[in-house]
């Protein structure tokens, strides 16, 4: 008998009598008067930056200004200008010098400041992690109160990879001192389009 059969048989023999699966009632969990405000507060509290904007003009200018510096900047958002499709096939070594990436998010979560990004939105799975500075863009209408609401809006089986990102990369592994910029982005800014 191979390991698989051995394990599954042992589990079948030892598992307790079936108990029912509870139902999650989204309506009974916390709600916020202003989810946008709550999202901003949470994001700022974890070292991120929230910027509310009325239209995309300021962002377009920001992308152009960044690209003009000659640094390695990646834009993955069509509405902001030319999409840097070529990054989808770049290796880690080629992405190592990535300074900043602009990525559209699907959902923002008010209770924790996280933003969901699908693989197709980041073009290359490494981009949101390997960049020094991360810029996320979400529509205000896509901010939901809790993770329960977030999972109702996304489909984790839709693409090969997806991630909730909440603020910049951090660690407190040395004497519990918080240091921003562990292995991932050193800063995370979320633009919220009103």
């Amino acid at each position, binding site marked *: 008998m191979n390991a*698989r059969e051995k394990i*599954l048989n042992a589990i079948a023999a030892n598992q307790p009598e079936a108990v029912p699966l509870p139902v999650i009632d989204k309506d009974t969990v916390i709600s916020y008067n202003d989810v946008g405000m709550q999202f901003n507060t949470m994001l700022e509290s974890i070292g991120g930056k929230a910027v509310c904007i009325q239209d995309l003009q300021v962002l377009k200018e920001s992308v152009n200004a960044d690209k003009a510096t000659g640094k390695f900047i990646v834009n993955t958002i069509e509405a902001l200008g030319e999409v840097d499709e070529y990054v989808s096939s770049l290796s880690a070594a080629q992405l190592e010098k990535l300074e900043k990436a602009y990525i559209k998010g699907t959902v923002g979560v008010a209770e924790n400041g996280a933003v969901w990004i699908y693989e197709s939105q980041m073009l290359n799975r490494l981009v949101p*992690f390997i960049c020094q500075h991360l810029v996320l863009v979400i529509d205000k209408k896509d901010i939901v109160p809790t993770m329960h609401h977030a999972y109702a809006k996304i489909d984790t089986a839709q693409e090969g990879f997806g991630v909730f990102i909440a603020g910049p990369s951090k660690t407190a592994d040395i004497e519990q001192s918080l240091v921003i910029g*562990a292995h*991932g982005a050193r800063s995370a800014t979320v633009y919220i389009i009103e």
Partner: protein
Amino acid sequence: MAKHAALSEKFIADEPRTDWHDETLWFVRQKRDKAAHGLPGWEQLRELASQIKNHTLSNLEKYLRQFEQQAKANGITVHWAADGDEHNKIIHDIIRKHNIEKIVKSKSMLTEECHLNEYLLHQGIEVVDTDLGERIVQFRKEPPSHIVLPAIHLKKQDVSETFHKYLQTEKGNNDPQYLTEAARQHLRDKFIQSELAITGVNFAVAETGGFVVCTNEGNADMGAHTAAVHIACMGFEKIIPKAEHLAVFLRLLARSATGQAITTYSSHFLKARRGQEMHIVIVDNGRSKQLGRKDFRNSLKCIRCAACFNTCPVYRRSGGHSYHTAVAGPLGSIINPNMDMKANADLPFASTLCGSCSNVCPVKIDIHEQLWKWRQVVVAEGYVDASKKTGMRGMAYILAKPGMYRFAGKMGRWVMRTFPFMINNKLNAWYKQREMPEVPKQSFRDWYLKNRGK
């Protein structure tokens, strides 16, 4: 092998450091309280999580089969390992097949439990741990002392010395920012070169065949999205039925662990990226046996947040290494006797049974009750130290004979009064770090007979 009490004695020899360790972990516990109490519906959330886990354990075979089927349909190779050795061999085979030399690993307590690094080192293969805390202890050739905060037993001076030796950082520069930056640069090189990334699994979803890995540093992603091969290792209890249940567990996990509302990265892996190969190793290593132990099976509900470590008065004052196992703390003390009862017979006794662990557990494991139950199992199986057994027997003998008990009490009081040095010495374990109580003039029984007994 040295037992918890002996190893703790070594740890507490440095009193200021013990106090620091105690306070630091209590601070993490307080952050957890703030996060938990700040979230309306926290108790309902715990109850929901507990029920989902109970349901999952009672349908585990079905969900594991479903998960395997879905993962395979997503192009992932699924392996099954009955024990740690099989787990290590599966990984070694993949390494050999691809002729891999550069390996990075993010935090996985399962690979610690299976001693994967040592196993591969014996085959001449080096694995680089990429979590900052794990890298620090790896340099120092120590095991992690905490499942969430692997280097919590170290001070920044220790880290500075270690990095000076291995990463040539400035001698005496203890700035955490500076030291973290040095590790970032060092590990970036390792990531860029990596051919194989090994990660743990926080949650595996039966419905989709996908799995979630949570980090604050981003190290799991840096490795997994770079390497040509990704192996994710999981104990079979990591399974949950549906993606919507992730909401419940992600809301609880970081709040319970560090007081954060969520970890920086909650990465959802479903399929390998183009050109990549993805494997999942599902490990038993004693878990199916634990599932059959009625009193202890619900330890398999654990989501490894370590809230029970941070709150435990014994853990905080004895340090993770005194538990001599990959998973320390109260939770470790209820899962390790199942894996090796003889080697871990001391662990259920490393507790005051105060119950704080059960109070903070996000999935409502009755940890302190299991500690108490393990004590009886361990004694019944004959794995208790001779001194403890003799003492208990003597105690039982005397307590069963009231006349003898009264005589012994009288003798004890007389000896303590007349020859205090016979009690106040090193042979009396109770006397260590404690003053003996003042001797009462009479026993309660004598007092009662005199005042109320008429």
